[in-house]
């Protein structure tokens, strides 16, 4: 049952040392504010699941929060490497990081299997490739109807699923718009959940009959964190801060520069700091919001 609380309380109540944690959001709506709170609270020995670790896991791994990473594409999108993850894998800094590597299709299927309360996912995948040789969790099953051999992966059932969304109403029903990634699946697959939202509204005002909504009784903790997805974005609120992603390459290359940045921008800050990022991008988002509103209007009228 949805419960509104501060992000600090939400993380303190739900994320424990050693947990399996999935923070999802496919490029869009990445829950950076929640990730920073996990770092501030000094969580250790986490297993982190995410299709694209992105900068959020580069930060968590660089700060030593994780023992294991489960993922399918570990770069800085359009820019290059996630240097902290590379340093952990190549040089065990700040400590050894175990990796469990999949393809996107397998990860998406594993979340869906988790949400579906199934023990594993089945897909026509991993054909002729080397990943199954280095990831023993990739297995196969023979179709009982056709005899076709298909790949299987275990379902994702995280201890904690964490996502960011556009808004929630006072009851705690959550609306997700735009690129929805695996967010619905990760919430439904997880034992406990934290949802950060841009705003709380009296009425959810869903843009279409088929909007992506998480009913309040599927959600755990909800925290209002304006700008909480920066430098990722929130469709209709602010755009992706591509220049931040480009700048991160330099910040993250060097261990000391990285640690200094994390101290100034994460350890010495609170979730309220994110609101400034939302404001900064308001002008850029104005255009997007207008076209969103137009699209929503057209859909309602149809």
């Amino acid at each position, binding site marked *: 049952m949805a419960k509104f609380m501060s992000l600090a309380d939400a993380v303190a109540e739900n994320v424990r040392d050693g947990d399996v944690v999935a923070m999802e959001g496919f490029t869009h709506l990445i829950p950076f504010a929640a990730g920073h709170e996990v770092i501030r609270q000094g969580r250790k020995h986490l297993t982190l699941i995410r299709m694209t670790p992105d900068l959020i896991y580069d930060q968590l791994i660089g700060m030593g929060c994780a023992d294991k990473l489960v993922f399918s594409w570990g770069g800085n999108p359009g820019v290059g490497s996630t240097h902290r993850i590379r340093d952990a894998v190549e040089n065990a800094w700040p400590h050894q990081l175990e990796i469990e590597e999949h393809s996107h*299709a397998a990860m998406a299927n594993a979340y869906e299997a988790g949400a579906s309360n199934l023990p594993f996912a089945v897909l026509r995948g991993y*054909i002729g490739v080397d990943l199954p040789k280095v990831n023993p969790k990739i297995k196969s099953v023979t179709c009982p109807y056709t005899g076709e051999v298909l790949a299987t992966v275990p379902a994702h059932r995280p201890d904690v699923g964490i996502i960011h969304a556009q808004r929630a109403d006072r009851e705690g029903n959550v609306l997700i718009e*735009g690129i*929805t990634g695996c967010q619905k699946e990760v919430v439904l697959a997880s034992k406990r959940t934290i949802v950060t939202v841009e705003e709380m509204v009296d009425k959810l005002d869903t843009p279409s009959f088929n909007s992506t909504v998480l009913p309040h009784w599927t959600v755990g903790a909800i925290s209002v964190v304006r700008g909480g997805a920066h430098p990722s974005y929130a469709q209709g609120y602010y755009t992706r801060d591509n220049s931040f992603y480009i700048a991160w390459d330099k910040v993250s290359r060097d261990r000391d520069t990285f640690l200094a940045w994390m101290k100034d921008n994460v350890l010495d800050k609170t979730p309220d700091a994110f609101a400034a990022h939302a404001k900064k991008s308001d002008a850029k988002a104005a255009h997007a919001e207008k076209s969103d509103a137009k699209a929503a209007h057209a859909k309602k009228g149809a």
Partner: protein
Amino acid sequence: MSDFTRNEMMTIVAARALKNDDVCFVGIGAPSAACNVARLIHAPQITLIYESGTIGTRPNVLPLSIGDGELCETALCTVSVPEMFRYWLQGGRITVGFLGGAQIDKFANINTTVVGDYNKPKVRLPGGGGAPEIATNCQEIFITMAMGKRAFLEKLPFITSMGHGPTGAERRAMGVKSKGPTRLITDMCVFEPDPVTMEMTIRSIHPGVTREEIAENCGWTPRYFDDCSETPAPTAQELEVLRDIQARTKAAHAA
């Protein structure tokens, strides 16, 4: 038209490979530029799909990531990522998958995972993302990559996505029904598979490039089709469209 870079040549040749009725699964980087140049020139009705779930997207600037808001705002519709991989990719709806890569071998297998031993990597690359399933579930695959001795290898340290298999025979032997890589478009030439051996063989050489240069930038001894020709140079329109979208993109991402 004489003034163009080899990268521009590569992107334009890649764009020419796409047809108006294609449904194309677009990788980020060079493939994304090529697909949008095709859309803006000769294939206005092409359906571009990015793995973030955007179907029929028409971005005004090239996305930095596969999930930029621009892709969603200009798409016909956006579906969830599990739906994208299950219904649309695995469902067999995609005619062309367009991939890039870090390393490739002569049978068009691709490595984007690791250089050196997997458990003690010399260089850890990003990994496969959507590519392992794109490579087998799309009806055919185009690849675009700049040539170089460290990129075009006789043998890969790791196969992230299958081309025609380590000896060229495995894809067929496994009964994979899709065609696999039918074109490899580089900054120097265009390769297509030999119909018998499936070895990627040079079909055309870009203007101003010599066979010696190609040999210097290829980790295996490349073969040529008997009727290997010169790739037509970019037209003024092709260059203008490519440069325009790149300028718009640069301005947008620096903002």
